[in-house]
């Protein structure tokens, strides 16, 4: 999978201590009373990197900050701190030329194909639009040829029958294919796919996932795959990062969601997965719900719900630490859970601070 040409960075995306905080609008009364401004720490110090041609899944419950992370990398929301690098350059770079390149090379696929396509545009316009506005001159013939190519790649064959249709004439699966064709037409290096199949029936999901994998095989595209579905993340990604309240709790190979996780939160998520087993094992479900990201608990943000909580957890916030090859967890007692998880023998800490080095 490694196809690093000369002069290219090994990582297509590098995220370092990324923070996105939103200020909550205060009511008039709060302003009058001079109450403190409240901030939602949607993303609160996230570090990871993505190799070329790699699929990394960000999983977590709603409110964990996975979508905001994806949007911040594409510079669609302003960062409050930290850095996101694309091809070695900061995404908040103001250089015009660089930005034009960035917008071509980094694309996004949205969750809801019923809302992400303009209902007044024909398919041909939707798919060719990125080419028409990318600044390079393309003549009509080339536009059409490349649109047809993109549609056929996305499995809408023969493309001619779809060119002059409107989105409302297509099914959900077909619409998502159109969205993929529009992303594909610029041959992006990096795609943020935000729950791309969660609105689709299981019977068509596979096609969309296969398309994404095919695109990575032909174009070496890298993906940040955002999903709440652990089994999907396990299925299609190389690595998985589990987020909780704006932080990565654990990151490692896809196997961590199949059971070799060490963080108590990951364990709880994996245990909550419904399985086809007739007689499910007794599982300890977490009580209550994710607390508000406005008032984060002191110490480990998972500590109020953690069944293994100890005094240290409510005092110090754990950092991501290396617990195995390419496997990092933000828990003070990760090594202890490691031996229980059957993930292998604990690896002595190497004093590495930056997760990207061991991945």
């Amino acid at each position: 999978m490694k196809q690093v040409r000369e002069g290219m960075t090994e990582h297509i995306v590098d995220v370092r201590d990324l923070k996105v905080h939103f200020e909550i609008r205060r009511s008039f009364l709060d302003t009058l009373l001079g109450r403190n401004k409240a901030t939602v720490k949607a993303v609160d110090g996230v570090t990871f990197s993505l190799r070329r041609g790699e699929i990394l899944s960000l999983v977590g419950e709603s409110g964990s900050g996975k979508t905001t992370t994806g949007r911040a990398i594409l510079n669609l929301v302003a960062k409050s701190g930290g850095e996101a690098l694309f091809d070695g350059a900061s995404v908040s770079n103001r250089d015009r030329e660089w930005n034009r390149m960035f917008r071509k090379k980094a694309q996004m696929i949205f969750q809801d194909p019923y809302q992400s396509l303009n209902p007044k545009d024909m398919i041909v316009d939707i798919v060719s639009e990125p080419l028409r506005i990318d600044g390079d001159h393309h003549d009509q013939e080339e536009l059409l040829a490349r649109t047809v190519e993109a549609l056929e790649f996305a499995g809408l064959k023969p493309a001619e029958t779809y060119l002059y249709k409107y989105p409302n004439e297509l099914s959900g699966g077909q619409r998502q294919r159109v969205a993929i064709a529009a992303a594909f037409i610029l041959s992006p290096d990096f795609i943020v796919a935000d729950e791309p199949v969660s609105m689709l029936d299981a019977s068509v999901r596979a096609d969309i996932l296969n398309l994404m994998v095919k695109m990575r095989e032909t174009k070496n595209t890298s993906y940040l795959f955002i999903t709440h579905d652990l089994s999907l993340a396990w299925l299609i990604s190389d690595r998985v990062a589990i987020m909780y309240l704006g932080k990565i709790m654990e990151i490692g190979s896809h196997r961590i969601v199949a059971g070799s996780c060490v963080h108590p939160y990951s364990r709880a998520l994996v245990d909550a997965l419904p399985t086809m087993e007739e007689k499910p094992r007794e599982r300890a479900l977490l009580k209550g719900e994710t607390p508000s990201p406005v008032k984060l608990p002191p110490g480990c943000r998972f500590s109020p719900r953690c069944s293994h909580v100890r005094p240290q957890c409510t005092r110090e916030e754990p950092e991501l630490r290396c617990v195995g090859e390419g496997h990092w967890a933000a828990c003070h007692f990760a090594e202890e859970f490691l031996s229980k998880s059957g993930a292998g023998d604990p690896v002595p800490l190497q004093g590495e601070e930056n997760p990207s080095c061991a991945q």
Partner: protein
Amino acid sequence: MKLLEVRNLKTYFDTREGVVRAVDDVSFSLEKGEAIGLVGESGCGKTTTALSVLQLLPKEGRIAGGEILLNGEDFAAKSEEELRKHRWRDVSIVFQGAMNALNPVMKVSRQIAEALLLHEELTEEEARRRVLALFDLVEISSSLVDCYPHEFSGGMRQRAMIAMALACGPKLIVGDEPTTALDVMVQAQILALLGKLRREFGMAMILITHDLSIVGANCDQVAVMYGGKVAEIGPVGKVLRNPCHPYTQRLLKAFPDIRGEREMVQSIPGFPPNLVTPPPGCRFSPRCDAAREICFSREPAMRCVEPGHEAACHFAEERS
């Protein structure tokens, strides 16, 4: 006597394009305390089947044939007036996204109390006590009694809707994708809650879902529906482990099995049938890769492959 018996149910919708045979000859039955899962792609008739049981069809829909026996009484033949007495008290429903159906300007506890007062003769004080007991049952803290819906999270609101559905102690509860819009953790909590209530009160459940893995852990029986018909029905373990209908087999391959091999999921090519003019023969035949001549001309009857496990395929026995 069975608690619920649905026999040859046919529910049709009269539309401008013609008569849509949304549910066409569906039969299943439920014992007291038993749970059945209805699964299938969108548009296969799962929700219409459930709405027919409750007689809550939209005005274009009508029950064109068959019987719905609840405790031996034919539900389909009752007048609206009589039905109103049974709904909520005998059967109730929790919809997908039901949490958005709460009235935003009325306290949650008040809304549940209203449902109670409408069906039972209670004083305000008794109703309030019942609401508190229900809150306790669905594990909502009693400190939230005087809150409005916007002060509840999505999971809490769904719990409140379950509390409302349980208010009059129904014998049968229908869950129409009750956890689809919720997070994994909340979903697991809600399903565990429904399971607990079912065991405690011997309540039967019809669980509608598109997610096969939910059925595995939460139901006793499963009916796989396709194009308005039951393709395969039987005890959950038997159907999921030994699927005999090609549609069930394909559907199982569309879900990743995190406890098994990491194999790419497979889609089912083609589209579900048009239910105004369904294909002749087996409705799945145009998408079935094992279809033979007879499949395109003759509709398959239900065939028993093992006790309690039936499949509507001409070659069901060969596949088991």
